[in-house]
Structures are given as structure tokens and as C-alpha cells.
């Protein structure tokens, strides 16, 4: 590591929620009211827990679980359920059907998008303040604004799926970096066309302005591979990367690789 390191002051918080860990890194810069930032982190954390309470398929009484069981109709569920399902509909269309929460056996499951969507909303609590930047990392899906100081953007490492203790590459974040793959939790991704658990790539990363959509597209990309890369090329502001099982990488032309 560089001997002359610019260690900037950051606030860090770790929250166990949604069955995983969500971390916050806040770069205050010249902003001095640390208590206010801590309050905003708390508000952000509440947003994550609220989303978990509504959407968790592990909580049998969550509105989503009840919807899946047919106990309630969509118009009896909290408004955010419709908001998320509408976003899923848009993502399904933009991904040419490779992201399809309605195809999964067991009922509609927007899990492939909810984490990113919730993390993005949580980040907005920090965006109220004139700080250099902030990062919300929800189990590997990363939402951010600004950068580590006033002049640069955040650099995000992408895990190497073949060697998860190392990186495959580094990207400059445009606001959202989402990665999907099965190397952490085993097979859990469903191919809506083959109608089976399957992925074509070892991992896939989508970057763009908004983490909810990036999350959905990354899920679609790891399942569909090169076919989905073609769909992402059409989406202004969103870029994709796939890492194949043999370690080769393919990406859209404007993918913001820095190393």
C-alpha cells in the first residue's frame, strides 16, 4: 500500500438486517456535526428494517408472505409493495424477461431487487447533508454518492468468483454497483426460460445510477449471460460485466473499469 496514505475521517456502522449485514461508510469532509450524521444513519437503518418487515419471505407474517399465500390482495398490502412490484415489471421488460420475479415457484419474489432498492432509499438519508460522500453496502450491493474527498468518486472492488478473497477488477462507481452470483450461498437463482435453478456465468456486475434496477439487472445478467449483456448495452447509464467460470470477463463498452 502507498506509504503516503490520505486517511480521511469516516463514520462507520454495521447493521444486521434482511438476513445479512449492511454497512455504512460516511465521509463527512468539512461537515462537522457528527451527531446529526449518526441520527441520519439511524433513520437509514429504520428504512432497512421497515423494508425487511414488509418484504421478507422468511417472516411468515410479512405483507409479501401473506400476498404470496393469497391471504391478502395487492391493494391490501402497503403501498411500497406495489411500488416494488411495478419496479420489478419495468426490470423484467428491460432485461427481456431474464429478471422475472413471477416465474419463481412459490409466488412472486422480488428479493433480487428489494435489497438494492432499500439500500438506495437508506442512502438518501445521508444525502440530505453537504458531505463528501457516503456508501451503503448491502451484502455486496453498493449504493453511493460523492466520493472519499471533494474531487474523486468511490472506487469499488469486484470480488473474483474463483477466488473470493481477492478482486477481479475495480470500478469507479456512478452511484450503484450490484453483483450477483452463487459462489457465496450456493444455487438459488432461477432461470425463467429453462425453468430451473441455473446460471450461465460465475458472477455478473451491473453499475448505474440506481441500485434497485442495477440489482435486478445483475441478477438477470448472471442467469442469462451474454444475451443479457446485449440488453444492457441499450440502457443508457447502465453497464454490465460478466465473469465466466473460466475467469474470462466480458463487458459493455462503457463499463467504468479503472483497473
Amino acid at each position, binding site marked *: 500500500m502507498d506509504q503516503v496514505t490520505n486517511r480521511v475521517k469516516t463514520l462507520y456502522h454495521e447493521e444486521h438486517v434482511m438476513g*445479512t449485514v449492511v454497512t455504512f461508510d460516511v465521509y463527512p469532509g468539512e461537515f462537522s456535526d457528527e451527531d446529526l450524521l449518526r441520527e441520519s444513519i439511524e433513520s437509514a437503518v429504520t428504512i432497512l428494517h421497515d423494508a425487511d418487515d414488509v418484504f421478507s419471505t422468511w417472516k411468515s407474517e410479512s405483507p409479501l408472505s401473506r400476498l404470496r399465500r393469497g391471504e391478502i390482495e395487492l391493494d391490501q398490502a402497503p403501498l411500497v409493495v406495489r411500488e416494488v412490484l411495478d419496479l420489478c415489471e419495468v426490470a423484467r421488460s428491460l432485461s427481456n424477461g431474464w429478471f422475472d420475479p413471477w416465474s419463481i415457484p412459490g409466488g412472486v419474489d422480488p428479493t433480487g431487487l428489494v435489497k438494492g432498492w432499500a439500500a438506495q432509499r437508506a442512502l438518501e438519508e445521508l444525502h440530505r447533508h453537504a458531505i463528501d460522500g457516503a456508501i451503503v453496502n448491502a451484502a*455486496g450491493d453498493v449504493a*453511493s454518492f460523492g466520493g472519499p474527498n471533494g474531487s474523486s468518486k468511490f472506487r469499488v*472492488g*469486484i470480488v473474483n468468483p474463483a477466488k473470493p478473497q481477492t*478482486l477481479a477488477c475495480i470500478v469507479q462507481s456512478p452511484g450503484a454497483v450490484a453483483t450477483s452470483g452463487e459462489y457465496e450461498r450456493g444455487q438459488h437463482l432461477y432461470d425463467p426460460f429453462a425453468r430451473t435453478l441455473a446460471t450461465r456465468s460465475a*458472477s455478473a456486475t451491473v453499475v448505474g*445510477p*440506481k441500485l434497485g434496477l442495477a440489482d435486478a439487472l445483475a441478477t438477470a445478467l448472471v442467469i442469462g449471460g451474454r444475451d443479457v449483456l446485449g440488453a444492457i448495452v441499450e440502457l443508457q447509464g447502465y453497464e454490465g460485466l460478466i465473469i465466466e467460470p473460466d475467469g474470462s470477463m466480458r463487458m459493455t463498452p462503457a463499463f467504468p473499469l479503472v483497473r
Partner: protein
Amino acid sequence: MDYNFGILSVKVQVTGTKITNVSIGAINDGGNFRSVSIDQQAIPLLEQEAMQAQSANIQSISGASYTSAGFIQSLQSALTQLGL
């Protein structure tokens, strides 16, 4: 109804309460929209030497989703402990 995802704008048609059509808003590319095949666009790279997070100037790590238990072993957790 318009959705805004950054510079990508998506138009959504709603009939009653259901989304019935989704289309990408006009792409402002000087009026020239080019559709190129993926073979021309995608750039295959040979596997690069795997990088160590400690030697890279990064602030966060994106990878496949882990559980709470998995977090402890994750690179993101290591990055935090390294104080980067």
C-alpha cells in the same frame, strides 16, 4: 408515467392498476441511434492476476450476496478491519 433511473428514462403505460407497456424513452444520441451486435461491443479479457484488496485503493467491495454468518469471511469485512 415516467420512471427515472438516472439518464435512462423509462416510459410505463398503466391500464387500471396494471403496467401494460414498458419502453425506453428517446435516446438522445445526436439523433443517431445505433444498434450494435454484442460481438462488436463486448471485450473479452484474459483472466487478470487476482488482486489483493489491501494493495488496491478502494473504499468498498461488491460481490455476491452473503448471509450474516458469511459476512465475517467476506472481503468487505476484511476491508473494514484493515481500516481502509
